[in-house]
């Protein structure tokens, strides 16, 4: 790992998401050694079929999840800026989920520890498959020192509320 590599951020453009969930496949194969959508670090929500929301950590400046962890189980990777979960220390208490404005972390369905995107060490698998297919719903961008990234820490429902008005009009707002 070279410390000189610029930090990255995964930009997300929900309107471009095809809902193919190849990001979930790629992520869970990398991190779990098998296809496991519910353990994928990026989870595609479907508040309305046709409106799919890839949901993954945005590495908020200030890292409220890290701050909130009572067990020091979360730390920030110096090279990538990703949140790394220490599985031995994590009790699965869920405090990080509450602290996250987008409720992005979740508890691993089998092993009981918090699951958070680790940016694959700087070369994320989810982005590869998304870009390869030309959707570019997830793309890697250089990360600058800015507060901007935290505005992406939102729940799929909140994101969907905005988009449903934009795409489907007010008749559909009641859906979400």
């Amino acid at each position, binding site marked *: 790992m070279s410390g000189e590599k610029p930090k990255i951020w995964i930009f997300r453009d929900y*309107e*471009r998401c*095809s*809902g*193919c*969930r*190849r990001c979930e*496949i790629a992520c*869970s*194969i990398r991190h*779990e*050694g*098998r*296809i*496991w*959508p*519910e*353990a994928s670090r990026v*989870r*595609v*929500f*479907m*508040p*309305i*079929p*046709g409106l799919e929301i890839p*949901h993954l950590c945005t590495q908020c400046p200030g890292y409220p999840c890290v701050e909130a962890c009572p067990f020091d189980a979360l730390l920030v990777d110096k090279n990538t800026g990703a949140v790394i979960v220490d599985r031995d220390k994590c009790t*699965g*208490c*869920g405090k990080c*989920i509450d602290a996250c404005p987008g*409720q992005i*972390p*979740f*508890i691993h*369905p*089998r092993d009981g520890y918090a699951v958070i995107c680790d940016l694959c060490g700087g070369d994320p698998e989810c982005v590869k*498959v998304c870009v*390869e*297919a*030309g*959707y570019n719903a997830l793309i890697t961008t250089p990360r600058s020192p800015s507060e901007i990234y935290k505005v992406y820490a939102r*729940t*799929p429902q909140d994101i969907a509320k905005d988009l449903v008005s934009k*795409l*489907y*009009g007010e*008749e*559909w707002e009641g*859906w979400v």
Partner: protein
Amino acid sequence: MPYGYWGRLLEVNLSTEDVKTLQVDKRTMRKYVGGRGLGVKILWDRLGDRWEEIDPLGPDNILLILTGPLTGYYPGSRVCVAGKSPQSNGVVGSTVGGEFGVELKSAGYDGIIITGESEKPVYLWINDDEVEIRDASHLWGKEAKDTLRILTRELIDEMSKKKPLRGLCKEPSILYIGPAGERKVRIAAVAHKLTHAAGYGGYGAVMGAKKLKAIAVKGSGPLPDVADLEGFKKLLDSVCKVLIKEFRMRYWGTGWAGYTVGADTSSEPIRNWQEEWHDEARFGVSFFEKYWIKRFWGDFGCPTTCLKIAFIRSGRFKGVLTDNPDYELQAYLGTNLGIFDPEGNIYLSSRADELGLCGIQTGNVMGFAAELYQRGILTKDDIGFELKWGDVEAFAKLQEMIARREGIGDLLAEGTYRAAVKISEMKKVDVMPYAIQVKGIGVGAHGIRSGLDYTKPTAYVCSLQGGDHTSVSNLDDQNRPGEYEMILLDSIVACWFNYKKQYLYEFFKVVAGWNLTEDEWYGELAPRIAAIQRTLLLLGGPDAYWDPRIHDENPQRFYEPLPSGPKKGAVVKREEIEKLKKTYYEAAGWDENGLPKPETLKRLGITELEKALERIRHRLGLA
């Protein structure tokens, strides 16, 4: 441990409310694979002895929802719905794309067997090991959008309450029916998302008869392990790279064909197949694009994402949303009704979605009715209004009447074949020549007369699934029954549009650990499944039976010359069909009457079919 599948099915009896799991042994899986293959086997084992007596819409029918060993692994996951079909009275492997199969496997099951029938409306909730039959009275009567929204929301709320520390819950996957299925409309679909449909077969009516409004599943586990992870990763990457290069299907979906199957191949149903050629450029894909709010939409693991989302923002159909009419619906809820207007077509498709109707069968039967109106056989008095070609509002009204079994809709709800039988009696005129169906199933939107489409002259004649355009009985380039390929896709269960032969058999190896070769598939596995499915189809009953000498046949219209276009005059000859039919029988190992030969059964190790074939021979006077 097996790979790729669990070897575990969920069985739910809606009459007794018993829920149990059962194991499927490795040998059976290897032999029947999954999806359609396994479905045919289960139905034969359980109902074969008294198949003719089983009312598809009665409590004795069995509804199957089955994945296959490659579901979730091969790009483009689907799930196969089967049972005794209320259309063909045989078995139809009816598949639908989406996440349902993946969720089901994540919950630890390869499939669901549903028996009996409930007294009150219910839905089935599967959350890993927790399986419940629940009251659905609040959902009964609801259309697609509402059913999905209400059920999704209440299940998420419930899961969130139950596991407050887990984090956000993802939506469960839901198969459901609309008002049409509830009323046992024989052309009702099993719907998924907004709106994918397992249309062929009429299993929406089977769910309705069982008072089963929906099946919802949320699994938290992984898919079963694969046999060779590194090999799988490499293979998946290779096949996705190939599929991603395919421009047409990806950028246009099958919606490119609403124009081209008319203009290029002269094989598109127009006004109930009175013509198959048109040059209506305004029905071309670029005129649909203006309604698309998403160009690439797909299901789990699909790099093709051929679906597009159409939304109408203003005008008389404001607020209408549907996955853009694919070719079949462009044809059947468009050209076949004389409609060449994208907006009207999108509207009719979205209404079919909402009502839970199969767009193909509904367009088929409405085209049939409109031709009878054109010919003065059905009148304004019969229908309640004028039914003129191209009149979107009139067909929209008729579609509602079919879904709700109102007025003439009650009769048309029986599907084209049964409606034709009844109207012939009613009007004392033989209207069967206008029924474009084979063995109770309206033919898909690919004609055979021009010879330019993939559907060859016998495409529908010997099909195990009647008019199903996804299960056609062409002889392939090696003179093998072409339907074997379709059985393969319905059994693995994955999408036809992602089918790449050179990769598929490799997938068996790396996912399931099977050395399944093309030779074995064509020589043994497929013929076995086909022989059983053929036997069940010919057993038929209780309200309709097929005689291969009469019903292994094209709709009469296909013997009339094409009246227009560059292929004007093209026609299929009966003598040619008779010859091709015999060649097809021979290739399938069936005798001159289309019944699987004793030596075929012996070779395939399914001599137990003999007693059923005896019953068929007896009925046909061949014994």
